């Protein structure tokens, strides 16, 4: 007898497709933020599935800091081609070719090129719904985030004043200038993301897989020397280590981990048998306790 059950991964997929379709149906001008990372890749693939055999009815947008890994830029172009979508690229014109993590420090660089850049891009295009690939399991302050997260006209999040969200009935009502951040992967865990990438054979940036790469050690974190903008100290020579990245961002701010994992299976194996959490590789989270919460109130994703 048929049991009419689907696995948890199929349930998560169905939930995400439902959310993506709701947004396409109810908002005037939605956009999908695309960071080129593995979560973005899953989200883009889900959008493709939500509208097949049709095309994805909204554009993607990448807020570029000009400091992403070079391999990421190549993968961005490939993804646009594969899914037949437009990827809008936004670089904060006020910081373009000037602001960088080495000259201005990680906090200022992220604030200007990422947080401010995102706000500018949203204002410029007048998007009323913005998909993001964040998951609730990533970090404690994210655990309370809604699937539809309301932002005022200054793109701010008020964690104490969120709209109640019941069943799968999402409230899409906004006034002019206000917007909703939408997180279709809210209920996914990191393991789910890897499993799904594997099941659906979704290509991801090769930086996720271990390979010999030139790195230097800064404050106990392994940083890859991705181009000659990386200032080396006197006599410093990049080491060649077999490393991979658990998250991808600006290369000077993204720590590598030493690893032998060259396939998704091996990554998952390492992940399950390891004992440190995913975000530890991100330099920005170390700035202050509860720093993610403060950044989010300010409009960071």
């Amino acid at each position: 007898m048929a049991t009419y059950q689907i696995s948890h991964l199929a349930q998560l997929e169905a939930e995400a497709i439902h959310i993506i379709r709701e947004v396409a149906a109810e908002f005037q001008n939605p956009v999908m933020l695309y960071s080129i990372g593995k979560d973005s890749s899953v989200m883009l693939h889900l959008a493709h599935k939500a509208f097949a055999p049709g095309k994805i009815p909204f554009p993607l947008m990448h807020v570029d800091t000009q400091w992403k890994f070079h391999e990421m830029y190549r993968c961005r172009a490939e993804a646009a081609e594969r899914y037949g979508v437009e990827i809008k690229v936004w670089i904060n014109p006020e910081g373009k070719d000037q602001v960088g993590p080495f000259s201005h420090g990680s906090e200022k660089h992220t604030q200007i090129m990422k947080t401010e850049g995102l706000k500018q891009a949203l204002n410029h295009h007048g998007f009323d719904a913005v998909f993001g690939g964040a998951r609730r399991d990533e970090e404690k302050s994210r655990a309370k985030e809604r699937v539809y997260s309301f932002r005022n006209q200054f793109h701010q999040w008020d964690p104490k004043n969120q709209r109640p969200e019941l069943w799968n009935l999402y409230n899409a009502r906004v006034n002019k200038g206000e917007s909703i951040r939408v997180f279709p992967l809210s209920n996914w865990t990191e393991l789910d993301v890897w499993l799904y990438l594997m099941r659906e054979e979704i290509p991801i940036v090769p930086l996720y897989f271990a390979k010999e790469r030139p790195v230097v050690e800064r404050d106990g974190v392994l940083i890859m020397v991705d181009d000659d903008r990386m200032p080396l100290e006197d006599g410093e020579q990049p080491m060649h280590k077999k490393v991979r990245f658990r998250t991808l961002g600006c290369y000077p701010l993204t720590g590598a981990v030493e690893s032998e994992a060259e396939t998704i299976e091996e990554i998952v194996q390492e992940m399950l048998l390891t004992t440190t959490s995913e975000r530890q590789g991100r330099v920005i989270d170390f700035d202050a306790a509860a720093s993610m919460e403060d950044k989010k109130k300010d409009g960071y994703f």
Partner: protein
Amino acid sequence: MSDQSKYEIQDEALIRDDIAGYLRKHEEKDLLRILTCGSVDDGKSTLIGRLLYDCKMIYEDQLAAVTRDSKVHGTTGGDFDPALLTDGLKAEREQGITIDVAYRYFSTDKRKFIIADCPGHEQYTRNMATGASTANLAVILIDARLGVVTQTKRHSFICSLLGIKHVAVVVNKMDLVDWSAETYERIRNEYNAFVSRLDFSDIHFFPVSALAGDNVVEKSENMPWYDGSTLLHHLESVNIATDRNLVDMRFPVQLVSRPNLDFRGYAGTVASGVVRVGQEVASLPSRRTSTVKSIETAAGPVEEAYPPMAVTLTLNDEIDVSRGDMLAPVNNLPRLDNEFEAMVVWMHDTPAREGQSFLIKQTTNVVPGVLTEVRYQMDVNELRKLPGDVDSLALNEVGRVHLTLHRPLAFDSYRKNHSTGAFVLIDRVSNITVGAGMIVDRPVRKSDEGPKSQNISRTRGEVTRVTREALLGQQGHTLWLTGLSGSGKSTVAMELERRLTDSGRLCCLLDGDNVRHGLNRDLGFSHDDRTENIRRIAEVARLMNDTGIIVIAAFISPYITDRAGAREIVGDKSFCEVFLDTPLEVCEERDPKGLYAKVRAGEIHQFTGITDPYEAPENPEIRIDTTSQDVEAGVSQVMEVLRDRGVIPR
């Protein structure tokens, strides 16, 4: 930190030796959504922290952070405080209480879990309702030292209201009552005593110390008298597969997909039931029918789909279907109405008032509507109606209300179908979600509404119905003949009229033609007009019944809800439904008015039985099979029932 042995992840060897095998196994795990609720200081965060920690879902760096935080914010005097693993936001951490719904994720070898962590504060009913709306199971915490308190009752009521079927009652802090079996039994009996009024299908109890870990993941050595399972074991094994509604197929359309001229698909999530290729479906509210041509997914077509699959349906006919419409089987339609009653949880500081208008989001519809009436308010602590008239609901209050919508929605009762019986209320000015509602069973009739003018009251003369009936030697009664066009309604009706008149009984025949030429000549054949047509006829029948006249009403009246409405207006005791049970093929062959021929020739576009559904009565008082009975026999059958009912003398 507990020095008990940690829960052994059996899969650890599998992960090391056969990662592909492990992943296949993990992918097929099912999902249990849990709601945790308890009062302040019941130890909810501690319990969740304990589950995560003992299931090895906590990484070393998180643990290091918690150990550091335990010294600053902890309530355990610097020892490891599992609660700090879960209390998310800074402000809350400082206050030491959770103030919103937070979601946690963990998995074991058997299942994947999503925990909605809900606050224990008395005023946060709204957050509980939010967490409960998607949960399969509720974990209700009780402090062993305090027993069942007001909040326990309140939380249980909200869980029941939101339709949670499974409850795990965790009697926590057993370490503080000397692991007393007596205390545990007393609390168990207390809880069972009040919960019998609620709608849970299974309740389990667990004596626990979340702080020390007893009976959470590991069996307790301190309570040898307890021979039940641990909490985690129960969460891993509770059967939720049968909770879903797989009977009533409902498919709310999210969007219409038209990538090219050859493809027209309706994208949506199966809300309930099973949809199959070839199934005959009607689109609501139009009631146009077609059959399912294919069920498309990005991975290719499938033969059937069920909840919560997100698919795209194509139909064999070009009927007009758009976002907000609902597809359902022709023989099993949801209710379609512009009003209903519901239980509502109010979630905003400004109270809900009668006469206030809202946007109502239900399935994929957003419809303006008015809160017509607050019927009563619930005392959520004592699980009963509050006495007295109320006309508003304040924040965190729960009440039964009547809502009137600007256009009809297709829905079921929440009890029968969570997906089609749930809605949220959105404030039209602020856009905030201000309430959550669950539609209740009782069908609401137009006749329930008061008259439009406030200056009308019903006239009661000295001469009563009984007096008139005595005068006539009969009782007023309505024979409601329903059936397809050509089923024999008019033939039977006219013969009945003749037989009754011949035997000296006063009766009156109402049929489509004489009513539509006069009283109802302003009405067409749209769904709303058909409903209004039947309502007026029923009102006329009642007035005639009041004067003692027997009314023979012969109308196709295809909708169950309309006929039920007529019955309610006339009164059940005076109403007799007569079903002319003639198959469509026979009706079409007879075609006394040549209408079927016109439909087939395309001259008539909307016709009951062909393009529009006919909902056959399930339990008519009289069923006349016109293919095996002649008119005479059918009429005699009706006369016999009238004599049995004492309407006419023997």
